[in-house]
């Protein structure tokens, strides 16, 4: 079972100028299908909260009690379904978006001074740092104690140096033929 970040199937949820495709990231979907994964689309935590006209933010801008409550509301059914899938004997992988302030897994966007009028070009200046995004962090909390059974990986679509072939190779390595990844 692969739980996909919403934008991998719907780039319309991305921030202005943040999309890497018009709609579906087909190479990612095709790879997962070839590996025998059943796909589930997670919600985009930013879309319904900040709308389609939002600019590229960092974790600190979203790190409010209201947004964390919003993430918890969205992550709760995902966590419940993951637990059910695990109980049914499925292997589970969650695919987030590295570089995202909310969906990042290993890399997120964070800065103490980023904010206000967006006068910096995104690609060169976006402050990416190690760590998960806020939704991913919330999902991990809700998955406890099942977290060790779930592989969580980020596709670097929000990184300046995004290399699709490199990211697909990383994903392929984590998900062997025949289904979702072993936990780790």
């Amino acid at each position, binding site marked *: 079972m692969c739980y996909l970040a919403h934008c991998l199937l719907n780039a*319309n949820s991305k921030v202005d*100028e943040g999309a890497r495709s*018009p*709609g579906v990231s087909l190479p990612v979907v095709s790879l997962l299908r070839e590996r025998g994964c059943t796909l589930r*689309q997670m*919600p985009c935590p930013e879309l319904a909260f900040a709308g389609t006209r939002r600019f590229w933010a960092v974790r600190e801008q979203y790190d409010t009690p209201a947004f964390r409550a919003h993430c918890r509301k*969205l992550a709760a059914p995902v966590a419940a379904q993951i637990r059910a899938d695990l109980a049914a004997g499925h292997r589970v992988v969650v695919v987030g978006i590295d570089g995202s302030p909310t969906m990042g897994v290993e890399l997120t966007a964070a800065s103490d001074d980023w904010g206000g009028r967006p006068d910096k070009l995104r690609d060169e200046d976006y402050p990416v740092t190690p760590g998960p995004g806020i939704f991913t962090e919330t999902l991990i909390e809700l998955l406890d104690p099942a977290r060790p059974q779930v592989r969580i990986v980020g596709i670097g679509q929000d990184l300046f140096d995004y290399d699709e072939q490199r990211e697909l190779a990383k994903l392929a390595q984590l998900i062997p033929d025949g289904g979702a990844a072993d936990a780790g």
Partner: protein
Amino acid sequence: MRGDVRSRRVAVVPDRVLNPLPSAPDELGALERAGWGIVALGSPDLVPAAREAWLEGIVEQVVTFLDDDYEVALAPGDDAETQEFVRALAAAGRSVTRVFGSDPFGVRP
């Protein structure tokens, strides 16, 4: 900066589009080629503890797209998930007026 390549076209589809049977046509590929992004409805196997909140999140997202004048279309279907979505969207005071035909992209045999 990359420029804005978002299509502003969103198709709300049942799980069978995302996870087709092996012999079924690839509707997702056809939607991708036509530039649509998808919002996939929950699969029939969602557990009760997830089902209602899962749908609520989907409705909030579709309302956001509709209110920002994105083109939103609904895949045809008499499955329970699609019917539940239509009812929940109506309860939110919105509707999707465009419904795809039975084979809008010519992928069915």
